[in-house]
């Protein structure tokens, strides 16, 4: 090999936080080429993607509606990622949270209590956490790879939802169509700004951001998570239990994803439907890394990812760009981010001088 990749002895700390911005700039530059080749004026396309979706108060509020589940899931995932616990099943935990949380309304639709929604949120968190407990158990007991178990459980959760919504959870007055009845007022997330769809779940997401920030920066468990993640053996010598951290991070992520799912069904969707999330649990993985696994970074990364969804729709309506552009856009952000990360931590070296000696 003429080129050799080697680890940098020291890497720039500030670059780690700059890479998301560099990745974004590179994405925008590349997309100019993309738009040009699609025969669309790049300035207009970028305007449609990043500025037009924020034109009005309503559209601005939609940004938070979209970002809420992304931020909730990503916060939960990031804590695990810091401890090298690779839970990629947030989508399934989100789905289980929606199922368990909304079961209260489905089985007691007449309930008219102010405690209904809080109980649903708690049940949602428990449902998501219970689903994440399965990979935690298999990891700690049998050392089963949590990447596989958490991912496979996504499909189990989606099929369970499908089973319920094509069966016992159907709206009795709905001609057997696979939808539950629409939620009653007391099961609905309160709207924060009237005339928009921005709901109480957004406050929960903000609360999660601050809570996770404090937890990671100021508490013992946060310290343990960081130590176990960066130097598991040092953590072991310090008496930190790796099993405890695995359990904690998975349950934490499961609970937050569960709340995300519940706040979708009792927020913008307002009923249980066969597909609750357009992949928020998976996009949250990009959000977590784009946000550098830091709660505040995740907050902004969540808004940015939400913007690409909205911008993709606006660009479709106003410019006739295909929906695939949104996916290409999101993919490019992640690609450039990872590429920049590699270059921050590694460097390329020409491998000529060594040849003689080897």
């Amino acid at each position, binding site marked *: 090999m003429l080129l050799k990749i080697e680890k940098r002895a020291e890497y720039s700390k500030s670059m780690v936080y700059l890479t998301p911005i560099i990745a974004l700039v590179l994405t925008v530059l590349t997309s100019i080429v993309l738009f040009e080749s699609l025969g669309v*004026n790049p*300035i*207009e396309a*970028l*305007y*449609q993607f990043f*500025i*037009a979706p924020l034109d*009005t108060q*309503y*559209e601005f509020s*939609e940004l938070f*509606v*979209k970002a809420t589940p992304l931020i909730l899931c990503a916060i939960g995932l990031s804590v695990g990622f810091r401890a090298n616990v690779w839970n990629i099943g947030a989508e399934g935990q989100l789905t289980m949270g929606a199922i368990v949380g909304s079961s209260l309304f489905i089985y007691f639709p007449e309930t008219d209590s102010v405690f209904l929604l809080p109980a649903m949120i708690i049940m949602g968190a428990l449902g998501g956490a219970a689903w994440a407990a399965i990979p935690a158990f298999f990891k700690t007991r049998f050392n089963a790879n949590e990447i596989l178990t958490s991912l496979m459980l996504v499909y189990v959760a989606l*099929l369970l939802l*499908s*089973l319920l919504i*094509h*069966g*016992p959870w159907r709206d009795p007055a*709905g*001609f*057997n*169509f*696979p*939808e539950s009845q*629409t939620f009653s007022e007391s099961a609905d997330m309160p709207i924060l700004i009237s005339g928009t*769809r921005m709901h109480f779940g957004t406050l929960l997401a903000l609360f999660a951001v601050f809570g996770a920030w404090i937890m990671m920066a100021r508490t013992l468990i946060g310290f343990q998570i960081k130590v176990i993640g960066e130097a598991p053996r040092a953590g072991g010598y310090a008496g930190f239990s790796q099993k405890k951290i695995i359990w904690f991070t998975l349950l934490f992520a499961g609970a937050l994803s569960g709340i995300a799912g519940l706040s*979708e069904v009792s927020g*913008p*969707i*307002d*009923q249980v*439907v*066969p*597909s*609750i*999330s*357009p992949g928020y649990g998976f996009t949250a993985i990009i959000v977590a890394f784009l946000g550098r696994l830091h709660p505040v970074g995740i907050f902004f990364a969540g808004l940015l990812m939400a913007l690409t*969804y*909205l911008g993709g*729709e*606006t660009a*479709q*309506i*106003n410019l*006739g760009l*295909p*929906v695939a552009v949104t996916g290409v856009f999101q993919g490019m952000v992640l690609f450039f981010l990872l590429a920049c990360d590699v270059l921050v931590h590694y460097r390329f070296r020409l491998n000529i001088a060594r040849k003689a000696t080897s």
Partner: protein
Amino acid sequence: MTRKQLSGLVSAVALAGGLLMGGTAAAEDKIGFIYVGPIGDHGWTYRHELGRQAVQNEFGDKVKTTYVESVKESSSEPVIRQMAADGYKLIYTTSFGFMNPTLKVAKQFPDVKFEHATGYKRADNVSTYSSRFYEGRYVVGKIAGKMTKSNVIGYIGSFPIPEVVRGINAMTLAARSVNPDVTVKVAWVNTWYDPGKEGDAAKALIDQGADIILQHTDSPAPLQVAENRGVWAVGQASDMTKFAPKAQLTAIIDNWDGYYVARTKAVLDGSWKSEDTWGGLKSGMVELAPYNDAIPADVVALAEETRKGIEAGTIMPFAGPITKQDGSVGAKEGESLDDGVLLGMNWYVEGVEGQLPK
């Protein structure tokens, strides 16, 4: 670049975008289409897209049609709302899952007209329309009953909703009317469009002895499998013969062109009223693709006779006596199931194997 320069650039971009936006606004009436799949699915969405093109061709400069493809049902509300807020006159939402979002947006925009496909909820500014696809399946059933050698017909179902169950039953009744030994095996794939899953389902059905594959999913993958394995198949939603020139017996084609042109015209001339349309072979909403040359002349004659009989109203696909799968009476001799029963159909007729998922 200083912050001031940067903000100057941003506002310049915004301004340029704004000017371009202003330039595209014109006097023509805007008509929107919201699709659940990609326009290249060669099935359901593709046929709606042809309908859109028919509207554009018919009215030329008078209308500007726009579509948004691959819209997730659970997050469709903001897309529909954005079109309504942008001053669209008429919006077609072309999947069942868009029902409640369409009604929510319609409530906020009483001056915008909406057309929702395959739903059952209407409002003063929301019409519904669907197709009696089962009439086409009844004709296909006659052909399938005659053409099968193994007496096993495979049927790929998307979701166990009444529309799909109706098609299975209509096909089974017709096939058994010409060949009482026929049994029908159903494979549910829980998706409208997933070429991989649909193809696998086709393989599984063929392995279980099916020599004719029908489908109520949107991709041509099952036909390609049938072509490779040397069995018959029936195209869905559009003529799929180019994917399976030898295997395709015929195809059940959705044709929305006439309906879309008529409803758009009604909006343009102010005569539009909210109504429910359920058209079949007679109205031209359902068509059959040219029959495969390999079908014997007497079978073609039988199929044509059936088609004409349904168009003339002399043949009712759900005329009694009908025996349900469990042996109970579905319809008595001399009675024909009415639309109310058909709309909520959640039982199999005799001859279908397996249990209907509930």
